[in-house]
């Protein structure tokens, strides 16, 4: 029999204890893997979902709220600004593209986003392209005769079950102006997949307050300057104005990442404590198992087994537990990350990839095997030093 065969036989001999030890290792490893994948996924989801526009101009208030509401639609919208802000920006010679955005209520949880056709236009600097899986984009209809047409994001179409030509509304106040689905977008892997896009005129027509306003309201204006070096000037001008603020979306996301880094550090400390607890548990399990079978070890030694063989058997036992727990933990961690990613996507539209395999998984497995062997080292030395004569003495 090889050392591995003997070690596995020993593990099977105390199956319940072996399974519980493996599960405890798997839980610890799974927790580490899941936390790494989820935090990385959230960050990558924010990066992937970020806007191509360099500035977001909105009402005075929290920059984070403005970006989360307008770009990621995770927060309630900031107070309105006047449509004239958009007109000023559009006519500014330093600005290449300005896109008005109005974030509204929701239909079955999918937010209304009112904008114009520039939102979907193709520009050389755009990373995200909008294309239709069916239908057409809505037209830039005049304010006095809104068309009440809607273009659905891919997830919004799937989630609501709406199809081309369907008319829909939610709430009594919208019953007079049901929207007609004229297009469905292909997935963009961003918050836009969960949006229902309508024209500004349709939005103002549906909204009683906005309908009566002479100067129409907006939530924000997305801005792309002709020269990026003008960003600081535009940013300053809009921030010193009494009603508006300008925000660099990437700057806001980097601030969020900074806060996440602090939370991650606290989580890392918890994970280290969990790792130490698992390590102690493996050590106690292996130590008590070795104590229990000192008589067997003495018998093996009496039958000719060398001290090194006994040492190796115990080390292989703890190593086997570590390998099984490590692999199980990596699989469990990925499963947990997948569930978390699905939940995040459903609730916030953040799209992350939970099945990324890179250096993290092999590194975690190697560390687990090393720590597993370390936890088995003292019991292995105990087995190594087992005295034959002393332990083969009659029990009574």
């Amino acid at each position: 029999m090889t050392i591995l065969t003997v070690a596995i036989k020993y593990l099977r001999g105390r199956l319940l204890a072996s399974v519980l030890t493996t599960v405890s290792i798997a839980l610890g490893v799974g927790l580490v893997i899941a936390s790494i994948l989820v935090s990385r996924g959230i960050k990558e989801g924010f990066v992937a979902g970020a806007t191509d526009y360099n500035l977001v101009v909105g009402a005075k208030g929290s920059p984070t709220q403005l970006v989360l509401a307008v770009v990621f639609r995770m927060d309630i919208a900031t107070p309105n600004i006047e449509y004239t802000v958009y007109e000023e920006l559009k006519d500014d010679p330093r600005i290449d593209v300005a896109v008005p955005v109005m974030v509204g209520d929701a239909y079955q949880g999918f937010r209304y986003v009112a904008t114009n056709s520039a939102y979907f236009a193709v520009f050389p600097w755009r990373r995200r392209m909008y294309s239709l899986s069916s239908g057409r984009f809505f037209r830039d209809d005049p304010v006095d005769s809104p068309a009440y047409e809607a273009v659905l994001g891919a997830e919004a179409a799937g989630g609501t079950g709406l199809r081309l030509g369907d008319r829909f509304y939610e709430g009594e106040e919208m019953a007079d102006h049901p929207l007609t689905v004229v297009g469905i977008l292909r997935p963009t892997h961003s918050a836009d997949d969960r949006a229902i896009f309508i024209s500004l005129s349709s939005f103002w027509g549906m909204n009683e307050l906005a309908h009566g306003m002479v100067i129409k309201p907006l939530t924000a204006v997305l801005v792309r300057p002709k020269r990026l070096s003008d960003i600081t000037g535009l940013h300053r001008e809009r921030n010193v104005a009494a009603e508006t603020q300008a925000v660099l979306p990437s700057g806001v996301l980097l601030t969020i990442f900074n806060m996440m880094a602090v939370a991650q550090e606290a989580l890392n400390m918890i994970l280290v404590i969990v790792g130490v607890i698992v390590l102690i548990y493996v050590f106690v399990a292996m130590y008590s198992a070795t104590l229990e079978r000192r008589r067997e070890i003495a018998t093996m030694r009496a039958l000719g087994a060398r001290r090194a063989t006994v040492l190796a058997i115990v080390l292989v036992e703890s190593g086997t537990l570590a390998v099984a727990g490590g692999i199980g933990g990596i699989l469990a961690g990925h499963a947990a990350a997948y569930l978390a990613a699905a939940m995040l996507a459903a609730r916030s539209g953040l799209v992350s990839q939970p099945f990324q395999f890179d250096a993290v998984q092999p590194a975690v497995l190697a560390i687990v095997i090393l720590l597993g062997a370390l936890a088995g080292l003292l019991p292995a030395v105990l087995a190594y030093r087992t005295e034959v004569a002393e332990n083969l003495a009659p029990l009574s």
Partner: protein
Amino acid sequence: MRRYPRTRAFRACLAACLCSALLPATLRAASDEVPRLTFAQLVDSIRADSELTQSIKSYSGKEIEIHGFIVPAGPPDLSFFMLSRVSALGNYCCEVPVGQDETVFVFAAKAVKLLYDPLRVYKVRGVFEAGMSSDPANGSSLFRVRQARVEEAVGAPIFKVGETPPAAAAKP
């Protein structure tokens, strides 16, 4: 007479130990000898006809160091950003926003991992490019740093137009 070889061996050993102790510091000092450019130099390099001086062009293709504020004008992984003499969030400051002459496009060698602070000065090292250039993603720029590495510049002074850093002043 017998002692002599021992003394030589001891001295050789001592010299080797000293060399090995000082070598990393020497190498580090050698690697630190990267010319530092300032925004003042960049501004001064622009002539009336918008051409750049030969002295600033001579840095093109060479590794340089420049200090400034990060303006996150690109994606949030900071693979591309602008480095500016003035902070992007200096609403409460007396500094006038800068233009193209005091803005450097920075293309990072890899995704930058740092705690972003709009009011902190960062040190950027990379391959310098001078001269008007335009790309579809980021538009036109006068100065660029590619394959850049970024880190916080602790206690670094920012030189304004008209000021000259001691290192630049010492050069002929």
